[in-house]
């Protein structure tokens, strides 16, 4: 590379650096979005009321479904994901109240129905948001099925999955979203 090319590259990077921090400072880093096909495993999980839930039946019922992976004593990511769920519920128009929010525990040993009930209460969850736990083997199957497997819960990452009712495919959103970004995604995918 010539000296001129180096200088030009430096200038361009410099210009980008002028714009980027200003932009990035205003909004969360853009989420990584992809369309995926997942095969939901045949597992029975347990919800916050202690009721058994056939995951496949719930996820593929035809109703709008959004899925994330959290745990009850998580420090940083889950509270923000859950604040997003709570905010979405608060903003849902009455006619869209059928959207089913599902959080699957990645700490199934500690997340008993009672822990999950208390968690949902803290976020002022309304009916339509279920927190599911189960056998560790089953939870592992679910995480693997959605490309979300982590062996150590402290190293998990923010992931939101929206099911496209028409195609049965999933919109995979990697990263934490702002409220407007989340609602825009839901509109785009006709969940709202």
């Amino acid at each position, binding site marked *: 590379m010539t000296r001129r090319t180096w200088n030009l590259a430096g200038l361009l990077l410099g210009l980008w650096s002028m714009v980027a*921090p200003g932009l990035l400072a205003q909004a969360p880093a853009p989420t990584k979005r992809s369309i995926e096909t997942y095969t939901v495993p045949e597992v029975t999980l347990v919800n916050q009321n202690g009721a058994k839930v056939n995951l496949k039946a719930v996820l593929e019922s035809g109703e709008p479904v959004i899925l994330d992976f959290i*745990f009850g004593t*998580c420090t940083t990511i889950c509270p*923000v994901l859950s*604040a997003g769920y709570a*905010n979405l519920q608060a903003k849902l128009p009455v006619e869209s109240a059928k959207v089913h929010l599902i959080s699957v525990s990645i700490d199934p*040993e500690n997340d008993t129905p009672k822990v999950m009930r208390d968690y949902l209460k803290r976020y002022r969850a309304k009916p339509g948001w279920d927190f599911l*736990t189960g056998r560790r083997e089953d939870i592992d199957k679910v995480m693997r099925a959605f490309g979300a497997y982590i062996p150590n819960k402290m190293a*998990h990452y923010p992931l939101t999955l929206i099911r496209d009712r028409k195609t049965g495919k999933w919109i995979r959103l990697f990263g934490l979203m702002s*409220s407007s970004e989340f609602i825009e995604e839901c509109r785009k995918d006709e969940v709202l």
Partner: protein
Amino acid sequence: MSPRVLLRFRTLRCWTLGLCLLVTAAFATPPPQSKVTDKPIKVSGLSSDKALALGERMYREGILPSGEPMQAVVSTDIPVVGTSFSCMSCHLRGGLGSWEGGIVTLPTNGAKLAQARYWKFPNLSPEERQSMSLKVAPQARPAYTDETLAHMLRTGVDPSRRELHYVMPRYDLSDQDMAILIHYLRSLSMDLSPGADATTIRFATVITDEVSPEDQRDMLVPMNNYINLHNQLSKGFGTRGYYSVDGDEMIGAYRRLSLSVWKLHGAPGTWAVQLQAYLDKDPVLALVGGLTYGDWKPIHTFCETRKLPCLLPLTELPVVSDSDWYTQYFSKGYYQEGQAAARFLHQKGDPASSGRILTISQDGAEGAALARGFRETWSELGGEAAVEVQLEKGEVLSPSRLQAILQKEKPVTVLCWTGGSSFQALDALAGRDGQPQVVFMSSRLLGSKVYDLPEKARGFTWLTYPYRDPKEEPNVSKYAETLMAGMKERHSPSRIATRTFSMIQVLKQGLMDMNRFFYRDNFMDRISMQRDQVLPDYLRLSFGPGQRYASKGCYIMQLSPGPKGELMRMSEWVIH
């Protein structure tokens, strides 16, 4: 890369970095400028203690002095109330922050806020930086003043004009509430806790006077082996520090360890006074391990009152609490077995229609804990209360006594929280009309007698078993022998040596994660942020903020027929 290319690359890097810093600064809202002050903002109309108490509630529970939840915005535009998650959720109780899922939560404790933060070696004190000639290293931010701290909490912009990550909530606080919160933050983990100095971290372990010499040895040998091993290594390290996997964060963190044995004598009611005398004479950072045959409650209460951590005492009679904080247990002990029986029954059918349940428990704390574990869990699951019969002190459950109780109560399920002395009564049950369908017993209460369960009773007797499947245990327990040098009997049924080994593994990780921030609350925070551990005895030990019982599981087993009956798993490790 040739030297010339390298030079160009460095020039480019400097250009870019310079521009980035310049422009980031230009875009961010400028924070108020004022001199660093050591004195926190005065909280008008409140005593310091009152302001601290109110600030603590804001920090831990997200509740304003008015009693209303704190209001904030997270991720740019998501409103959130403090009662959903508070400062403590991410920064942890000691305020030293956390790392989770790729997001670093910075320290927010008094000592750190009062110092400039540097990109390189952020854990060094100003004096150390000076002595290492690092004072000119680029700053991430200057020390916070009360004004810049308030500005950051409201806008997310720190005193270097850098905007913090959007997961940091931006708080809507009045001036008075802000002053209260800052007053608390200034005091949080400000002075190091007693028990650690420039060379040594001191620990103690508690042993009560009824504990046999053999059991004392089983705990103390692995502990002393570990301490000696650690201190031998420290001769090489001194306090010079070493490099952790991810860089330079461990500078100055290395310390020798010491272990005192605090022997408690006499009635449990006198233990608090004895413990206080020990602590006054020999301030330790934390208690580790510990042995008593009775209830751990007096020691638990002392630790809670004195805010003294206690790591993994070897007790089956812990305090079961959702909110107590300073003792990390292996499990809920006997309580957890009762809990497992309730969950297993619930899983088998609707609690409301599962028939009459009878609990027979032997006199003493063990039977009471088993009964309570079942009672509370069964009630939470919606089951009808069991009929409870408690045997007299020293009473053996004879066949005639059992028949009399059964004829009166006619239960479908019996929880027989007694020892092996009830086997004769169980044997007599087999084949009788109207016998209960299921009998539960505690394998821990039965001890090695579990394998003597009468042949005829094996079909209807379910055993709560709070450890790893014995068939799978030897491979894992072998690992523990690394610290059992000098012990003849390495795997006693009491599992004292192996559990001590597990405690040491958790302690080692905790010490590493605590770094040089020797605050008692930080010690507990670091223990709770550990990843799951696969160690002897329990199938899995798992942690998390506020989680205080590391093993959450308990199998339901049955004993196979024959003279060499084996335990067979009839349930998952954790039953939901």
